[in-house]
């Protein structure tokens, strides 16, 4: 094999399957998953204002979907994704600024993110339903 074609001996980082699942890695994966979900959710948001700009029957059709079982599950998932990605995003910004890297802090902030996003989702769900 010539020197030019020789494969470079780069170190490979061990991947997901060799690790035991733990809170920190699960939350990291969930951040990405909710980010992808929210990208679709942002299109959903755009469709909402487009429907509101259209005829009333178009908006009624959109509202009809939101009120259906599937629509409610989608909206519930959308709300949770929003609150989770928001809370964990703030956690990431603190890391970017250099704070909270100790293992103890990473776990504590992780649990805070889980609890706050669950409470925010439940609260907005209950208040929202009461307003209807």
């Amino acid at each position, binding site marked *: 094999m010539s*020197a*030019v074609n*020789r494969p*470079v*001996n*780069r*170190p490979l980082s061990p991947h997901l399957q060799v690790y035991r699942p733990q809170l920190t890695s699960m939350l990291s994966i969930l951040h*990405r998953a909710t*980010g*992808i979900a*929210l*990208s679709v959710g*942002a*299109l959903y*948001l*755009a*469709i909402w*204002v*487009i429907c*509101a*700009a259209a005829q*009333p029957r178009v*908006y*009624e059709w959109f509202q009809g979907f939101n009120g259906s079982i599937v629509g409610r599950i989608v909206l519930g998932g959308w*709300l949770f994704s*929003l*609150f989770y990605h*928001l809370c964990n*995003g*703030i956690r*990431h*910004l603190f890391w*970017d600024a250099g704070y909270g890297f100790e293992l103890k802090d990473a776990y504590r902030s992780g649990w805070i993110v889980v609890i706050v996003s669950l409470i*925010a989702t439940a609260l*907005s769900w209950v*208040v*929202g*339903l009461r*307003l*209807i």
Partner: protein
Amino acid sequence: MSDLRSPLARARGLGSAKHGLQHWWAQRLTAVALVPLVVWFAVSLVMLSGADYGAVRAWIGSPFVMVLLLLTIGIGLHHAQLGLQVVIEDYIRSDGWKLALIVVVKFIAALFGLAAVVAILRIGFGG
């Protein structure tokens, strides 16, 4: 540790393109902007539940809401396409597919973003 660069890369000696920071910084800047916007939007959305066509249009059409909603959708879609680009770069190995998917994501974000802007302005200014 062994040298991480291939002999060819070492011979070319180009190094990095020095454009990596821009994407990273834009992702963080949009994230910071979205924190208050998303909190405002989530609270508004809950307060709006059960509102009919007319009430929703009246809400979207008020100047204060128009500005914040335009910012939320515009910055939100920008943040989304920046994030999706990183996900695609991480998981898609083929250069062709990688490029194609990133371009499609950017086009969809631009299309829906502009459509939403037109819709909001139309509600606000009548038409």
